[in-house]
């Protein structure tokens, strides 16, 4: 259709492919044509011998078979005109793998979209209570989240447990949706805000932090660590070490440890720092699936009820859900 000579035919390897394909197809046609008028004596042997005595005789093939051969040649020419195959030529249909993928995705979206979208109208807690939505949410979770958080959502070293009520970035529906949509970056700088700490001081700080959550520790070290803590850690984890979910700083006084509670692990964490990333799924999954996943994760048991502090705003929950939905749309 839009055959562009300069871009479609130029280039050695392109021409190489074009010539091989064209010569093969036309060659087959010419060969058939020549064979059609070739003559031989019936009962003549071709000279091919197998297994000592098995010889091939020249026996004529029925004409209809020859026409089938011609049909294959015509098929090849038609195919190469319509579809890519002749070097860079895109074919009249402009077919591409990518295009077919997009088309199939569009068809799937048209078919399954309404099933997902109907939950978009409901707030997260209603969806979380719906058994059908939970089942769909679980399937989505196993597909998109289980690789890191485990199929039971229990997490693993470096990947948070989603079933408990400890939330690095907050466990309300809005916060969970925000996390899934935009992803999160968790950063612990090496040696916190006191980069001049030596190895012994690091051990002291670790001992102090261990004491906060009731882990075994050397109390002399812990005492020294308590003095270092305000300079080294308090800026992020807070003077009371309860963390700050607004910025994703973990609570150091509970029993939940993202990288494990062994002393060596904690020393490594403080010495080298940590970098952690949750990828953004908003664009990839679309608002409806994110909504279902939010409800599923929220409903796993550790979810925090949204905004109970404002009783006069009884209608706040649906409003919050609406603003949450709008967020991915605004991004586009």
């Amino acid at each position, binding site marked *: 259709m839009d055959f562009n000579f300069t871009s479609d035919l130029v280039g050695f390897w392109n021409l190489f492919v074009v010539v091989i394909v064209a010569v093969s197809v036309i060659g087959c046609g010419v060969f058939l044509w020549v*064979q*059609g*008028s*070739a*003559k*031989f*004596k*019936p*009962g003549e042997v071709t000279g091919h011998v197998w297994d000592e005595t098995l010889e091939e005789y*020249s026996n*004529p*093939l*029925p*004409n*209809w*078979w*020859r026409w089938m051969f011609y049909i294959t040649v015509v098929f090849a020419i038609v195919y190469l005109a319509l579809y890519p195959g002749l070097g860079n030529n895109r074919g009249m249909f402009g077919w591409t793998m990518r295009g077919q993928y997009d088309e199939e995705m569009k068809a799937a979206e048209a078919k399954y979209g309404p099933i997902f979208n109907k939950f978009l109208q409901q707030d997260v807690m209603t969806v979380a209570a719906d058994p059908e939505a939970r089942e769909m949410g679980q399937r989505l979770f*196993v597909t998109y989240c*289980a*690789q*890191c*958080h*485990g*199929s*039971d959502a*229990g*997490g*693993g*070293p470096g*990947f948070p447990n989603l079933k408990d009520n400890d939330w690095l970035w907050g466990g309300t529906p809005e916060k969970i949706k925000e996390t899934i949509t935009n992803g999160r970056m968790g950063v612990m700088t090496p040696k916190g805000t006191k980069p001049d700490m030596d190895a012994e001081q690091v051990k002291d700080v670790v001992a102090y932090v261990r004491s906060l959550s009731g882990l075994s520790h050397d109390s002399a070290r812990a005492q020294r660590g308590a003095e270092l803590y305000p300079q080294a850690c308090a800026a992020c984890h807070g003077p009371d070490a309860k963390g700050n979910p607004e910025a994703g700083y973990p609570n150091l006084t509970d*029993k939940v440890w993202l990288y*494990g*509670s062994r002393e060596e692990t904690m020393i490594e964490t403080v010495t080298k720092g940590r970098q952690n990333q949750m990828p953004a799924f908003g664009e990839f999954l679309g608002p409806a699936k994110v909504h279902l996943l939010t409800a599923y994760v929220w409903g796993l048991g550790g979810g925090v009820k949204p905004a109970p502090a404002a009783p006069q705003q009884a209608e706040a929950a649906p409003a919050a859900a609406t603003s949450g939905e709008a967020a991915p749309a605004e991004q586009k």
Partner: protein
Amino acid sequence: MNQPAEKNNAAAPAEEVVTLYKSRKKIHPRSVTGRFANWRWVFVWLTQLIYYGLPWIPWDDRQAFLLDIVNRKFYIFGLVLWPQDVFFLAIILIISAYSLFLFTAVAGRLWCGYTCPQTVYTEIFMWIEKMIEGERPARIKLDQAPMDARKFRLRALKYGSWALFAWWTGFTLVGYFTPIRELWTEFWTWNLGPWETFWIFFYGFMTFLFAGIMREQVCLYMCPYARFQSVMFDPDTLVITYDVERGEPRGARRKGVDPKSVGKGDCIDCGICVQVCPTGIDIRNGLQYECIGCAACIDGCDEVMDKMGYPRGLIRYTTEHAMERHWGKKEILRHVVRPRIIVYTLILLAIVSGLIWGIANKPDLRVNVIRDRGVLAREVEGGLVENIYRLQVMNVSEQPHRYRITVSGLDGIQLEGEPVLEVEPATTKSFSYAVRVPPEAAPKGSHTIYFDVKAEGNEKIAVHEKATFLMP
């Protein structure tokens, strides 16, 4: 009339030069009656009653025989096959292949002559043709006649009847994959899905084309079996043979004349054996790859022998050795039992018993244990080590079941989560489970543990499945 066109072909002078392609000579086989023709009709009825009847048989609230590809369940009477049972299909194919080897080694192309769909449908289509257009001479005449009202009427009737029959064949085929009663209403209310429509008409068209139009061309040029069956033959294989010694020199003579007195053999050269041959060969030229073993020539020749008052069997089922060594029936039968036949039979018996054993012992429950790969092992409160598994529980039976799950294999091993689960009949469900082990139970590395899934109330339905537990 006694000089059919086919004969010229065989006697072509060696100097003749031909092209690599030849146009088809239409064959008008003359119909035969006799022992072997009766056998063929028995097999036509048998195979077609099964083919057209099977999908209509009900079973409980479903079709007795249904290959439900969409839901990946094959229903065969009381048996439900899942994709996991696909090896049964492989075994059935192996059994078919060995049966073919066995039958071929014993008596040549029995499959081709009596039960091959190409033969069976050609037989049916030729019967329709004979009913409408008449016997061989009438058909030859009709073919040569110019198109007029009568010819047009006969042709329309013939092709119409063929098309109707072919459509029924295609419809039945789809009825094996879609419930046939629903398909029937769907068809008449014009509600067929695109694939159903395609397969009904595609299979119908192919039946029409192969059985009505192509006929012997399929056997001669398309069928691979025609090409390799020769390797299954040996000198003790029963084949259809013309008794040259008894028949030659052939020639016409009056009825009741003793052939020896005129210096001739028993063959009166009537050409019946050539006229009745559906592949258009002359069996008197010896065994040829075109011969599908239908025995029409035997029936035709026997009839002529009876009329002439000669003994039957100028053309008969016999073996190469029997011809050479003048064996009787007894010796032929004695040579049926030979190493090749014994080996084929033993292998066939072994595989058939294997299939029966396999189907009889088909489990009612299947369990796949899939360890979470992303999360290798995690530490939980109390210092326990936890691994996560997904159990895919397939209730292969047609009743709902409650299953109880236990784990074993390491000291202090325990299962977290609801140990009882319910699965509806013929469904698969997935469940996540955490398994916890005290850190001192095993050294670092991977360890084998076992999941036991047992149906409540029926201890026989149980699966003992191996899994791996990782210690960090």
